[in-house]
């Protein structure tokens, strides 16, 4: 037995050492990855499954859940239950909130693109030395506190805000314009919040742009608009798609912006979810809404992955 066991590793000695080295490396790798996997797994991913479970339970009277299976939360997204007659009527109130959130996020993504693309192009065409400065100017709002930035927009739009004061003092207004607590204010807030998220990826794509291609376009009698549409924009597409995703996803789930600028009336999905865990005390319904939002985000991410894959194949 023992003699055989000793004989079994037949290969040359080098392959044995290679194998043990590879084994040791895999073990080290496992140990190095373990804390990240454990912390994110337990405190980041497991909670998502708990939310999924909660969405199929009954709500407790004082928040929390009762451990009774129920699909009521999902029914409630589409229907209103009449307590006395036990009938369901189609109710579009929550669908409208989802639809409004989608529209606001889509609109602000488009607006960010229209402002952000020229800005990124401007930055990418500066001399190399001053480029760093412009990137720095975009990086600061990228990393500064969203709450404070949204608050600063409130100061501009309020009835007693900068715009109204200036317009009144110029004699252009008799009474203040209602700017804040409107869909317009929320849209503006979203644009302001996420504009840097659009500029930076587009800049990263344009910075690598080979301007000899632009020159070739001009040599072939293309107009500036044609060069832009047929050469610059297609080459910047990965940046445009990445930027759009980075604006659209947080826009869709925004909470601070509608909270401060929509005044609680112009609800978006984010506020609706938070409300269910707060004063409405309907955790299953809040969880269901959160999962629907998560599903919408996943769809956006899949579209992103597919688009980037395709454009990568086009140019690669």
């Amino acid at each position: 037995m023992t003699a055989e066991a000793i004989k079994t590793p037949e290969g040359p000695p080098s392959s044995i050492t290679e194998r043990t080295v590879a084994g040791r490396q895999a073990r080290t790798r496992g140990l190095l990855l373990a804390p990240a996997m454990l912390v994110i797994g337990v405190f980041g991913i497991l909670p998502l499954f708990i939310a999924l479970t909660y969405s199929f339970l009954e709500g407790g009277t004082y928040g929390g859940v009762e451990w009774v299976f129920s699909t009521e939360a999902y029914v409630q997204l589409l229907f209103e239950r009449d307590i006395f007659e036990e009938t369901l009527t189609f109710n579009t109130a929550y669908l409208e909130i989802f639809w409004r959130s989608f529209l606001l996020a889509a609109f602000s993504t488009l607006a960010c693109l229209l402002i952000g693309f020229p800005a990124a192009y401007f930055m990418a065409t500066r001399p190399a030395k001053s480029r760093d400065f412009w990137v720095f100017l975009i990086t600061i709002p990228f990393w500064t506190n969203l709450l404070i930035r949204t608050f600063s927009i409130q100061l501009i739009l309020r009835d007693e805000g900068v715009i109204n004061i200036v317009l009144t003092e110029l004699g252009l207004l008799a009474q203040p314009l209602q700017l804040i607590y409107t869909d317009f204010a929320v849209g503006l807030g979203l644009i302001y919040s996420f504009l840097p998220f659009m500029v930076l990826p587009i800049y990263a794509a344009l910075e690598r742009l080979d301007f000899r291609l632009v020159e070739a376009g001009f040599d072939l009698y293309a107009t500036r608009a044609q060069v832009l549409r047929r050469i610059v924009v297609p080459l910047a597409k990965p940046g445009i798609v990445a930027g759009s995703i980075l604006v659209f996803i947080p826009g869709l789930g925004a909470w601070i912006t509608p909270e401060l600028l929509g005044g609680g009336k112009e609800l978006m999905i984010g506020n609706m979810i938070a409300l269910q865990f707060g004063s409405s005390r309907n955790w299953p319904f809040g969880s269901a809404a959160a999962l629907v939002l998560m599903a919408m985000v996943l769809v956006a991410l899949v579209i992103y992955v597919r688009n980037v894959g395709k454009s990568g194949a086009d140019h690669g």
Partner: protein
Amino acid sequence: MADTAHRTPRALDLKYQPGFTSVAMLCFFVLYAPIAVLVFFSFNANRSVTRWTEFSLDWYVRALANEGIQNAAVTSLEVAVFATVFATSIATAAALATTRVARYRGMTAAYTVINMPLMVPEIVTAVATLSFFALLRTTLGINFGLGNVMIAHTVFCIPFAYLPIRARLENMDLTLEQAAADLYATPWRTFRRVTLPLLVPGVIAGAMLAFIISLDDVIITMMVAGPGQTTLPIYILGQIRRGVTPEVNAVSTILLAVSILFVTLFFLLGRRRT
């Protein structure tokens, strides 16, 4: 356009696109004007946040003497320091395991898990984490107090700390470590004396990002924090809802200054590298 092409020098510029510079200037103006207004009125002597009377530092004095703000600042720092230390250590280890190695099975999965907190909308993370800790409390009787907030922050800080560390590792020269190995250094010694010192700028950059991300968080903290566990942004949010005085502007300006300081350091650190 075509007519003027031979006349103005600008028209000869390959890179020129009409109107782009104006839009870019508008973009920078829009990004900075509201912040400038906020900072400006933090120095207002008046109670108003939009009508200027005269310069004063009163609101800063009041803010710094305000016990609620002091407590919130301490809580914020406790949470941010905890989250930074843990997220950065965890991210450094994870970066070492996912960079500069041959592809192995499960690497993409590991990469996806590390970046997962970036993909889930904040509000979803917030309510899911709240549900998780509520379940821990009701079924197992476990409640970490402020620890709940610290753990939640650590999770979403990991990917932010990970990115610069990974970038640093990828750009690092392998030859120095090979030289160390040639000179009979053990793997641990090589790591301790060669890899780690080279990695330090990346680790610092990662820690700084984690710190400001933790310091700025509102939604997750709001959902997870129990009564009395007020961080600075939560305090500011409460004040904004109650009606604002320039005191809010003053606190906000201080918090902004901290963020800007960190971003600047981060930026300079990154520039020296390239």
